[in-house]
């Protein structure tokens, strides 16, 4: 049984807790594949998505997950500018809570915002990405995808390629994978990998060729144009040349290695078309699994006892 009030990050979860969520996501995935994708499990429960940052897939994914389980879902999109001038996060959270909300799903550009909210509301809080800190449901769906395709996570070597410094996806993946004993390589320009990341139990590379050699999974991260202005990379062109994942580099991994990307992709920058269109690419399946994992999280947070039995 999931004992915590909230899901704020994978750092604080145990491997058993993560396994429980992943196990619960298996029957959830089965529901998504049915003709009639609806079960009454969370009827009478409500969920609000509170997004301070733009998002296409995560927000929709949470809303679909809630609807498939019959929860009532609403969404609140707040522009970043109104944060400074307008209502505080705590007040916004309390307002949503007193409407009778059971779960608040929050995406915020400031690291720790979900923690602030969670401390100030009785509703359960799910972190849908906070600044550069964590994106636990993305981490979970990545783990789910790897486990589904490759089995025991503890036997895997996973290379995470790209802008590690600014990536909440990287952090959640690292915490999740290392808890199961997987080996994690991080690779990217030295300006985009914090020195101290080693203390999280990963191996640091600056050569894609070396980092991906014989790995089971390559997880490619998005690189953002703003990094160029901040002097962290000279240009996207040079980034693509040195760190872009092309067929040749990808071929150094195990022949059946998975190619993953959390999206949205910069085609031709961090990943080349021939790679994301190849057979090993599981980018689309990650999105489907995202819904399953979020269903599992909603189910467990809203009172589900143990692994869901997909009978009803």
């Amino acid at each position: 049984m999931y004992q915590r009030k909230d899901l704020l990050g994978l750092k604080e979860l145990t491997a058993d807790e993560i396994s429980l969520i992943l196990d619960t996501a298996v029957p959830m995935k089965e529901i998504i594949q049915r003709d009639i994708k609806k079960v009454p499990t969370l009827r009478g429960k409500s969920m609000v998505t509170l997004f301070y940052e733009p998002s296409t897939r995560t927000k929709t994914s949470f809303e679909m997950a809630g609807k498939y389980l019959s929860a009532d879902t609403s969404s609140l999109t707040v522009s970043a500018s109104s944060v400074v001038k307008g209502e505080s996060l705590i007040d916004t959270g309390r307002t949503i809570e007193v409407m009778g909300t059971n779960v608040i799903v929050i995406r915020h550009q400031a690291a720790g915002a979900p923690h602030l909210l969670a401390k100030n509301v009785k509703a359960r809080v799910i972190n849908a990405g906070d600044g550069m800190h964590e994106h636990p449901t993305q981490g979970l769906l990545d783990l789910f995808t790897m486990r589904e395709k490759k089995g025991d996570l503890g036997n895997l070597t996973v290379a995470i390629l790209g802008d590690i410094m600014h990536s909440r996806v990287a952090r959640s993946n690292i915490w999740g994978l290392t808890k199961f004993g997987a080996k994690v390589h991080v690779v990217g320009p030295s300006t985009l990998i914090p020195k101290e990341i080693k203390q999280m139990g990963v191996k640091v590379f600056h050569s894609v060729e070396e980092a991906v050699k014989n790995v089971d999974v390559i997880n490619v991260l998005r690189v953002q144009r703003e990094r160029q202005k901040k002097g962290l990379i000279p240009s996207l062109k040079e980034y693509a040349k040195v760190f872009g994942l092309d067929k040749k580099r990808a071929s150094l991994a195990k022949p059946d290695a998975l190619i993953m990307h959390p999206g949205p992709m910069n085609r031709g920058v961090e990943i080349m078309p021939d790679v994301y269109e190849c057979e090993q690419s599981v980018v689309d399946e990650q999105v489907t699994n995202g819904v399953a994992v979020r269903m599992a999280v909603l189910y467990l947070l809203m009172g589900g006892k143990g692994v869901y039995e997909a009978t009803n």
Partner: protein
Amino acid sequence: MYMKQLIKGGRVIDPLNGIDGVKDILIEGKVISQVADQIAVTDQVNVINAEGKIITPGLIDMHVHLREPGLEYKETIYSGTRAAAAGGFTAVASMPNTRPVADNKAVVRFIIEQAARDGAVKVYPIGSITKGSQGEELAEIADLKEAGVVALSDDGNPVVNSEIMRRALEYAQMFNLTVIDHCEDPNLSAEGFMHEGYISTLLGLRGIPAAAEEVMVARDIILAELTESPVHIAHISTVGAVNMVREAKKRGLPVTAEATPHHFTLTDEAVIGYDTATKVSPPLRSEADKEAVLQGLKDGTIDVIATDHAPHAREEKEVEYAYAPNGMVGLETVVPLVVSQLISKGVLSWTDAVVKLSVNPAKILNIPGGTLSVGAAADLTIIDPEKEAVVDPKKFYSLGRNTPFKGWKLRGWPIYTIVNGQIVMKDGKIIE
């Protein structure tokens, strides 16, 4: 009110007079009239029994933000000086980043006059180095001096332009004013929210490297050498900065430094959990940095303990970590932190502590105080080294409640603050 007060049987620490021993102190009117092993009790004398207590020259905090004028919702001269008195301070130096900035005579005069009307302790204004603390043109320093400033600082902002800093040092020297620098290279610390290290990496908060401070400390030392003018490094917080100041002192350069209680007590681990009370500039640093600050205090590299008391309104701090302003209150917790963290652990003797909390601030600011000499103003602090209490921000006199020490049980609290012979604080309560 009695005209005479006799403080009996306390352990008197008066470093300038080489005193550390049990003595009686007689105060007549506003001044200390006698210090002796035994002074007879006569009628018309208010006796304060100080057995087992520590008596020190009035403590002086040379780095305080009183926020008035302009930011009275954070703190006022009334509330801030009461916080000072409650914390055992008889004098504070107020930083000029008010609204408007204390870069002109009018604002400085206002602060002095408001302190005379409303203040519980002595207030010494610090003037701005540059106009508006913008770092571009020198403020009218002669005018500021005439108005009564005791030092110059653009605190909160560094003086980024090295040429301006050089000229400020040269010019300030004519008026015998020390320049206090908030050492930070804003390009290196750009948009950072906490110390850069493992904790910032795992919290996903942009980091401020130690180098952002060290680059500016190095520059200031070089400019102190060039101009032969004194420079005081505010809130020193890194290994490299402490080492450079130590080296500069060995070479005889006119460089002094202060450290805050939070930098000698806490590390960046306190930020885990995103409590905005831990957000401060310079940020809480690594364990090695904290150790370096402790070593600097111990070996005399760091001359002063100052709080950088920076009150903020509750609504300003109850926000996402990234959006919270920097700063924490310090006046009402510094003495027990010095006792618990430094004296009890053998980092400082009582004499060393008094030197850093009273003698050196008076010397650097060139103001009266720091001594219990006969004839000196009767500014004294009495500390009960055994008193234990839990830090409760609700009981603060400061309007700011932004402390990371909430709930800490600490030992060694001030029990009397006496300013010009008047008891302004007794047992933590302000006497009006």
